[in-house]
């Protein structure tokens, strides 16, 4: 049995209440904090809705570079290895190609943290 409303729905309605009902009554100095709180709720909501897409994007990146050894169970270990290998110059001959792969992974995280920014940057 699934509890309803879902976490995403609760975050959405809490955010609506914050912005529509509380914000108009807050003194101006407190607006910034309220807007930040609304943003934090929106990010959390999108993260829940995005499900595992951020992790999948990272796993796809690591799989592309390291093959099937980088299974999703070893993601953290391979992220450390990728960071290290990049610094040591092991990907120097294909930096632009690695850049394209990183772009896909960054885009997946940006869809959660700030989708408007993606649009402004000409991506979707």
């Amino acid at each position, binding site marked *: 049995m699934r509890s309803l409303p879902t976490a995403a729905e609760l975050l959405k309605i809490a955010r609506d209440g914050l912005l529509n009902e509380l914000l108009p009554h807050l003194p101006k100095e407190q607006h910034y904090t309220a807007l930040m*709180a609304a943003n934090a709720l929106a990010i959390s909501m999108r993260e829940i809705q995005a499900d595992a897409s951020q992790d999948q994007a990272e796993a796809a990146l690591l799989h592309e570079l390291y093959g099937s050894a980088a299974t999703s169970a070893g993601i953290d270990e391979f992220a450390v290895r*990728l960071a290290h290998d*990049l610094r040591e110059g092991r990907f120097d001959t294909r930096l632009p190609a690695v850049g394209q792969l*990183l772009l896909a992974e*960054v885009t997946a995280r*940006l869809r959660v943290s700030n989708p408007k*920014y993606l649009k402004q940057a000409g991506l979707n």
Partner: protein
Amino acid sequence: MDANKETTQKPDVETFVAGFLQREAGAEAVEVHSCKRLGGGAIQENLALDLSISGGPWAGRHTLVLRTDSPSGLSISLSRAQEFAVLKVAFAAGVKVPEPLWLHRDQGEFGRDFYLMRRVGGSAAARPLVRGDLTTDEREALLAEMGSELARLHQVRPPVASFDFLSVPEGSPALARVAEYRRLIDAIGRPQPTLEWALRWLELNAPVGGETVLTHGDFRTGNYMVEDKRLSGILDWEFAGWSDPMEDLGWLCARCWRFGAWEHEAGGVGSAEAFARGYATVTGQPLDLSALPYWKVMGTMRWAVIALMQAERHLSGEQPSLELALTGRMLPEIELDLVQEINAIEEERARHA
């Protein structure tokens, strides 16, 4: 710095400054008319002081700013005494800065170092300036002013005797930055593949044969004052150091400091070319902008590292804060900027190959 010193049993600012100025300015009496906190600066605290001095060479009314450390300092920035030394040199070089007047080296009597400088008119607020109704000519004139001020600053070359606290990078300032950012990332201890990718690119593409000059280190919209559409003063010198002159322009032009006005490359206000024209009026030779795209990437990199450090203050429990927490979630934006900027440079290069 003095962040952990006990400050409770100390005299209040107004009383202390009045006594301090009596000694330093040879005054008979000092009357403080008003003292209020100025906004801006997570690291420094700025107080606007309006006071009258009677007797001595400084007799008269003065509008000053007192700048001190606020309780949470960033370890990579200069102390107040060091910043005061930098301001003195910049002022002597003819750069538009608030004139630095007196430095207080604390021996426990107040609780913190501070210095006093003349207050500059205008506003440093970024968004009203970026979104304001400046005409194209006014924007370009403002950028030209920034260019000529920075050119004056960049004419200061090492060594400067009072700068014993600033190290001159051995070899390329760009490579010194790459090493510094790697150290800071390592200190946080989480893998950052995108940042490592960008740092490797910055390492492989570092410009050769650049000069080493006195740079502001944090020259961006929000850190200079504008009054009646003219530049009235450059503030916030705590990141000054010896570096490549283009680092200052790269930081000003990085996408993160355009406050949404992406169409105006230089600080969301105007063009880098206008900055270069103003720069050339001081140096007498054209400013070569060919390395600017590289230094924009370096600026974006710098912001990535600062954002990581800010987020870490929340994550480590040192300073739980919604704002710092959200800064951590800005990382993907900065990473996207890095990838796009580097890709654009590589594509441009491929076109000309």
